[in-house]
C-alpha cells in the first residue's frame, strides 16, 4: 500500500460522526496492519470447518489476505471462526478459549449453526447460536458457506476493522480492557452463569404453577 492510498479514506464517514471522529493517518496505518494479518484460531467444530480448511487450501488461499497463519493456541489468535454447530457440551470450552484470546479479538459465526443453531437448532444439546455467549462481529449465512462466501465474510470483517479508531477501541481505554465471558456450567442442563437469578425465579414459578398458567 503506498502513501497515496494510505491517505485516502476508503470508507464513508457517517454525517453524524464527522465532527466527533478524527480519522487519522495513524488510524489507517494501524488498521491496515491489523486487517492484513488477522490470524484465525485453528479451531474446527463441524462441517463448516472443512470449508474453512478448503478456504485455506490452494484453490482459495487465504494467505492472500494474510490469514494463512492458523494458530492452534488462542494466545496468538485474533479471530475466532466459530465454524460449526456449538453444542452445550462444547460451549464451556469455547468460552474459555475466547477468554484466553488477547485483544483485539473478533468472532465470526460461520454458517447457520453458529449463527443460530441452524438445522440442528431444535436439538437438545445444541446452543442456539454462539451469540448467546460471545459478541459476534460477523455472521456468514449458508450451510455450509462456500469458501468464497467465507472469504466474503472475512472481507466484511476487514471493512469493520477499517472503521475502528485507535482512540476509540476498547482495549486502549481505561477500565477493563477485555471482554471476559463467565464460563457456563454443565448442570442438569446448560447453566448460563449470568442468568442464574433469572433461571432461579423461572424454575420456582414453573415448579409451583399458579392456577391460571394452564390457560
Amino acid at each position, binding site marked *: 500500500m503506498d502513501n497515496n492510498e494510505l491517505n485516502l479514506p476508503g470508507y464513508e464517514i457517517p454525517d453524524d460522526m464527522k465532527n466527533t471522529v478524527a480519522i487519522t493517518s495513524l488510524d489507517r496505518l494501524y488498521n491496515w496492519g491489523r486487517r492484513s494479518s488477522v490470524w484465525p484460531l485453528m479451531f474446527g467444530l463441524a462441517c463448516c470447518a472443512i470449508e474453512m480448511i478448503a478456504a485455506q487450501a*490452494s*484453490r*482459495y*488461499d487465504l494467505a*492472500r489476505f494474510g490469514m494463512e497463519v492458523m494458530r492452534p493456541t488462542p494466545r496468538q489468535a485474533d479471530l475466532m471462526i466459530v465454524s460449526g454447530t456449538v453444542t452445550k457440551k462444547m460451549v464451556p470450552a469455547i468460552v474459555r478459549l475466547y477468554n484466553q484470546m488477547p485483544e483485539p479479538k473478533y468472532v465470526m459465526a460461520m454458517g*447457520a449453526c453458529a*449463527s*443460530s*443453531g*441452524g*438445522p*440442528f*437448532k*431444535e436439538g437438545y444439546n445444541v446452543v442456539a*447460536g454462539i*451469540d448467546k455467549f460471545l459478541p459476534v*462481529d*460477523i*455472521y*456468514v*449465512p*449458508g*450451510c455450509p*458457506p*462456500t*469458501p*468464497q*462466501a467465507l*472469504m*466474503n*465474510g472475512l*472481507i*466484511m470483517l476487514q471493512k*469493520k476493522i477499517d472503521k475502528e479508531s485507535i482512540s476509540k477501541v476498547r482495549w486502549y481505554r481505561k477500565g477493563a480492557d477485555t471482554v471476559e465471558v463467565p464460563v457456563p456450567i454443565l448442570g442438569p442442563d446448560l447453566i448460563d452463569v449470568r442468568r442464574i437469578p433469572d433461571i432461579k425465579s423461572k424454575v420456582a414459578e414453573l415448579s409451583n404453577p399458579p392456577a391460571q398458567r394452564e390457560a
Partner: protein
Amino acid sequence: MYGKGLLKGLGVTFVRFFNTYWEDLTWMWRRVTTGEKRYHSAEGIAHRSSKNTRGIFTVQYPEEKLPVPEEFRYIPFLVYDEGADGAKEIRCTSCGICSKVCPPQCIWIVRGTDPSTGRPKPQPAEFYIDADICMNCGFCAEYCPFDAIKMDHDYELASYTRTLLPMEKLMKPASYYAEIRPLNAAREDEARKAKEAAKAAKAEAAAA
C-alpha cells in the same frame, strides 16, 4: 539405500515447483499468440478447474470468482413475473408444500385473504425464510408445484446481524431466475406452456 524414498518424494515436489513456472511461461507465450490470459479471465479460470490444471491453482477471489454451476444452491428466493405495468405477480400460491417439506422447518407462510370476501386467496400475505436455520437442501425448490421458489446463486450474504429474510427480500424477478438457471427455466417454461395449452384445448373442447 536409505534416503531414496525421501529423494523420490522431493522429486515430486520439485516437479510441482518447476511446473508452476513452466505453466506461467507457456501461458505467457499463449498470451502473445492467442491473447488468452491465465489470470483474471474466464478461460484462465476454466483452465485452472480442468483436468489439465497444474502450477498455480488459486482462483483469486474477490478479483476473480469461480463461476458457479447452474445447479448450485444457496438460500432460496421467490420468483415473480413482471406484469404489464411493472406489477410484481408473485408465482407463489401459498399452497404450503415448501413449508411442509422443509427439513428444519424454517419457512413461515401466512396465507393471504381476499379483503372483499375474507376468504383465503392463493397468495402469501407474509413469507419468511430464516436464513440462519436454512440448510440449503433445495427441497423447497424441488417440490414446489408452481416453480415459485428457487435456489439462489448469491452467496455473498455476510452481514453484521442475523439474517431473517421477509418476503420483500426474497422476491426476485423471473428474468433473474432465467439468467442464473437458463436450462431449468427454459424447461419449466416449456412445461408450463404445454400445460396451459392442454388446459385451453380442453376448455375449448368442453365449450364446443
